[in-house]
């Protein structure tokens, strides 16, 4: 193996990491505001992937355009989930909420298994730009991967701008900072919570549509993606949006490094090793604030 292969693999890992970051952003938004750990995270992402797959098969829609449709549908799903189900268990201890989401997660996986079967299906060979690549000096970059990463950056930027400048985004941040204060000034917190879950789910759905460009979908991807997103968010720092992106890039690069230096099947073990290391040295995450 030479330096060229290594650099290329690491750069590809960085691009994949951006998509991980976008998906983890969805998890982080939901946790940061509603304080719910969305255990059905990877499952929602897989739902997004299947939607993009069907849209491509039925009408030939490019997954990058499906981002809008998949995001919109998952927004509604997330909104309904929070408004109808999760709000009802808000008074229960953390672990009961977690178990409810775990149950929803298993439900989604088994429904996907029943509907789509266990085989991997994808679009990665059928797109007009599938096997194309750019060459930039030493770097050879696959077009689908580059487009996917670019789309992830666009969606993530849109999300960050939404939270920073839009009135709804600011209201949501107010709820996250001071629940009681937000209620006192007359914000409709339960509606804002539902919106937050919707926005988070839309973000996850968008990440699902995007990642279909480079990964074939099967139901068992869901728990794996849930775990990756958790690792990303804990490494980056729970509740920190930039931390989620940074964590995503780190995990993407470390997976790529593990795959090329050791064995592709060990890449997840590397992410977990990184997680344990971060928990040992900096339990609040790289960009997180220490919480008590």
């Amino acid at each position, binding site marked *: 193996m030479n330096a060229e292969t290594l650099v290329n693999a690491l750069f590809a890992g960085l691009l994949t990491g951006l998509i991980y970051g976008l998906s983890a952003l969805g998890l982080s938004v939901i946790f940061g505001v509603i304080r719910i*750990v969305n255990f059905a995270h990877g499952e929602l992402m897989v739902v997004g992937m299947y939607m993009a797959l069907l849209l491509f098969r039925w009408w030939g829609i490019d997954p990058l355009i499906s981002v809008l449709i998949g995001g919109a549908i998952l927004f509604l799903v997330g909104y309904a989930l929070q408004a109808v*189900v999760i709000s*009802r*268990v808000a008074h*229960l201890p*953390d*672990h*009961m*909420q*977690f*178990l*409810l989401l*775990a*149950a*929803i*997660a*298993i*439900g989604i*996986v*088994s*429904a996907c*298994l*029943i509907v789509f*079967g*266990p085989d991997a299906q994808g679009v990665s060979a059928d797109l007009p730009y599938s096997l194309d690549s750019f060459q930039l000096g030493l770097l050879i970059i696959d077009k689908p991967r580059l487009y996917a990463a670019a789309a992830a950056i666009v969606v993530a930027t849109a999300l960050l701008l939404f939270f920073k400048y839009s009135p709804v985004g600011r209201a949501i941040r107010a709820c996250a900072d001071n629940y009681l204060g937000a209620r006192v000034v007359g914000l409709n917190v339960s509606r804002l919570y539902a919106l937050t879950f919707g926005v988070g789910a839309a973000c996850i759905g968008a990440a699902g549509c995007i990642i279909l460009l480079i990964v074939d979908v099967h139901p068992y991807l869901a*728990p794996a993606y849930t*775990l990756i997103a*958790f*690792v990303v968010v*804990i490494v980056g720092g*729970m509740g920190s949006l930039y931390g989620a992106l940074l964590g995503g890039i780190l995990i993407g690069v470390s997976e790529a490094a593990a795959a090329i230096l050791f*064995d592709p*099947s*060990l890449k*997840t*073990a590397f992410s*977990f*090793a990184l*997680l*344990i290391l971060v*928990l*040992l040295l900096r*339990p609040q995450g790289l960009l997180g604030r220490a919480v*008590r």
Partner: protein
Amino acid sequence: MKSGIFVRLFGDLTPAGLVALFGLVAMLILLPFVFSGYIMTVAIMVFYLAFVGQAWNLMLGFAGLLSLGHALFVGLGAYTAGYLFAKQGVPPVIGVFAGIAVAVAMGSAIGYLGFRFSIGGVYFALLTIAFAEFTRIIVDHVKFLGGTEGLFLPVTQESRRGADLINMRGSPEMFYFVILALSFAALIFCRWLLSGRIGYYWRAVRDNPEAAAAVGVDLFRYRMYAVMISAGMSAIAGVFYAFFYNNLFPEQVFGIERSIEATLAPIVGGVGTLFGPIFGAFILTPLGELLTSLVEWLQHNNIIDKRVKVDGVKLLFWSIAVASIVLLQPRGLWPFICRILRLTKKIEGKR
């Protein structure tokens, strides 16, 4: 002191409760003399689920620590004793202690990481999942444990008869009595723990850690005890699993499905109750089996597509069961039954 220990263990039961408990035990002991074959297999699964559930419940129900990686401890017990038996010829009566030691060591490592840095609540649950997955991937690559090809325990037609308790080789009836004894030992052990100092400390730590620390309970120490005891019990369950099924694959033994399986019976029965895990297992396993036969029957008669996997349907059913328990009866079914039948003086699981 004999009456003392009796009162400590069974004092909470009403006369009706005592009769019910001992009647149940007597019936369960007689079960193999009436039924055989399929019913025995289901009964073994019921008590396996109840035993693992009891171990998991000890952490969440007693000490307030959510673990979603209990497959890790079960798997370590299974692999340690299984390896010692299959590759080194060490009988499981000795192997089980090695299994417990490995699982307790791992539990202590996770507990140390988690509690030193006050990684509480769901973060701790994530840590347990991370460790379980990490171990699964590592065992995939360990040659002497068989890797992804699996570890097989030697079994012959003769060894499926009789009752060789030292080597855990024997008939389904032997396995039934072993797991039945383990389940009731676990029930009494947990009752003994709960009615002692450690049990009161655990509940204080669970219900209000700040207040418990303020009155001088060492949070770190008592949380560590809970993880270690639970890990050890789970390892025993793992040894049983290994010798009952005779083959171990990392995907199956350490998989997240197995961790979730450990949580089901106590959730349905009632987290934090003593009899909840057993009750939950009694309800869930037969329901799961009924569902399997129903799906197979429907497929046989071409009402459902043959490609639909039974496992998928079963998982869907479990997810609906857990979701409805959380939404409708978050304390589980056992406290509810207990209240109607007046089996205990205080309602179990009431906080």
